[in-house]
């Protein structure tokens, strides 16, 4: 119960934002950060807890996003079941990629490269296919009505995104305390030892990548509902693969709050530099790069760890 309190505190504080701030820029920033945090939380399940570093979480984000959009636009489905189906499809894609990669024993950089390759293949296909609108992209019709998972107020959408992120945090906490969580961490720390203790390494990794893909897919669906527009470079672009892994690595991989913290820090810094440096394109990415180098260069390799170290010193 004690561990749930910080999550609830975060939800309440973040939930107050729309009541205190009217600025669309700020709310936009918060919603976007929440979407990234959700995608990053998905990455964290597999990468942070399981030690399987994916460079291709765009494959899941994009699938969640496209399925949510396509089912509405092409098949006239309501947004909520479309969003749910998007999560399901993303999970399925995760399971299939996981099966192909893990069954053949791919680990470390090989696994990272294969996931990157899958995401790129999806991007190219989505850019060419008719179903996805090709290079022109796909537009979800604007019908601001809660029944369509669209909201006139940004603040309302923030609450919805916040609810999903809170659920993801609670799910991560539950995983951390479950048998699957313990086995997943064991696999990360030492596969041979885990096997010797009766851990079915393949099964554990498959469960982890499926959950991970579902969560990142949910972020994709959320993105589609918020911006109402997708093209292949957004949905399956490398940017989201990088964001999804950068946030947990900076904030603390394999911790409940790492991804949220990382997303807030990175995007906070990014926005701050953008407003200070003005019109230099890509300046926020430069900042991301610098933060990543600093974090990886100095153990214990995440910001909370650096702070702990500082306090002890």
């Amino acid at each position, binding site marked *: 119960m004690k561990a749930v309190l910080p999550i609830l505190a975060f939800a309440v504080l973040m939930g107050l934002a729309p009541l205190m701030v009217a600025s669309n820029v700020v709310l936009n920033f918060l919603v976007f950060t929440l979407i990234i945090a959700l995608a990053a939380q998905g990455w964290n399940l597999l990468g942070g807890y399981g030690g399987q570093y994916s460079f291709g979480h765009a494959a899941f984000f994009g699938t969640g996003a496209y399925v949510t959009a396509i089912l509405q636009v092409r098949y006239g489905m309501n947004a909520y079941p479309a969003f749910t189906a998007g999560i399901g499809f993303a999970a399925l894609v995760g399971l299939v990629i996981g099966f192909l990669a893990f069954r053949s024993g791919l680990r470390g950089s090989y696994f990272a490269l294969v996931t990157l390759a899958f995401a790129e293949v999806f991007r190219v296909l989505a850019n060419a296919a008719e179903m996805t609108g090709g290079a022109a992209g796909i537009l979800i019709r604007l019908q601001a009505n809660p029944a369509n998972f669209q909201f006139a107020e940004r603040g309302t959408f923030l609450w919805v995104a916040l609810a999903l992120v809170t659920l993801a945090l609670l799910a991560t906490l539950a995983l951390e*305390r*479950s*048998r699957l969580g*313990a*086995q997943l*961490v*064991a696999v*990360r*720390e*030492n596969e*041979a*030892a*885990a*096997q*010797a*203790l*009766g*851990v*079915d*390494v393949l099964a554990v990794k498959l469960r982890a990548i499926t959950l991970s893909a579902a969560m990142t897919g949910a972020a994709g669906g959320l993105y589609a509902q918020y911006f109402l527009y997708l093209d292949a470079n957004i949905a399956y672009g490398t940017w989201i693969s990088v964001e999804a892994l950068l946030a947990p690595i900076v904030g603390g991989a394999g911790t409940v709050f790492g991804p949220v913290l990382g997303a807030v820090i990175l995007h906070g810094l990014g926005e701050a530099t953008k407003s200070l440096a003005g019109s230099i394109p890509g300046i926020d990415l430069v900042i991301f790069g610098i933060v990543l180098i600093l974090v990886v260069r100095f153990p214990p390799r995440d910001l909370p760890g650096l702070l702990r170290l500082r306090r002890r010193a």
Partner: protein
Amino acid sequence: MTGTGPDPAFLAVRGVTKRFGGLLAVNDATFDVGEGTITGLIGPNGAGKTTLFAVVAGFEKPTSGMVMLEGEDITGRKPHELARMGLARTFQIVQPFAGLTVRENIAVGAFLRVAKRSAALEVAEEVATQVGLADQLDKPAAALTVAGRKRLEVARALATRPKLLLLDEVLAGLNPSEVRDIVPVVQGIRASGITVLMIEHVMQAVMNLCSQVHVLAQGRIICSGTPAEVVAAPQVVEAYLGHGAAKRLQGATHA
């Protein structure tokens, strides 16, 4: 073999051969481990003991031969399946989950039999007491001494509630007083009804613990018997000290 009924041996290794390319690591090894015993597997360095362990525990598939546990053919089964069947092993080169505490390390083993975290942590505490790690439960595994890590290996394996425990040199690298501390732990394991097969170099411990010893040299089982018998066997002396050594030693005592 007549083929009626199960093999009487608890663990039966039959004609196991393991070849790595041109290297014959284990050559037609056959031996038994009786239920409820502590059985030793000794032999000079490079004899193939650890490879043989890896085959029995499912980490390597034998090139030929068969391994049976309680009469059931377990050859080539995956390690996690064997663990579920009650076969646990430790590693000669200890493999702790370095980022986790001692408690969490042991709990991973316990999760094989229990689904709830609280139950797994309870088992971890119980097992830690059994192997003498009770006061180190909240230390990170990386902070343990060599002796502590060896105990942790044993504790994790015990937490899986095995029927058969394979110990790969748990005493290696320990000083004499640490060895004296662990010997009763192994006896306690046997007393709790677990059959033990141990690879060991520390002969003092082998003599104290094992009722039966198999000697592996150059991939072959060259001798089986009680510790006193194998130590006296000329082929064992020669395996360790070189060809003709048994004769010279005998000559020396008779002179």
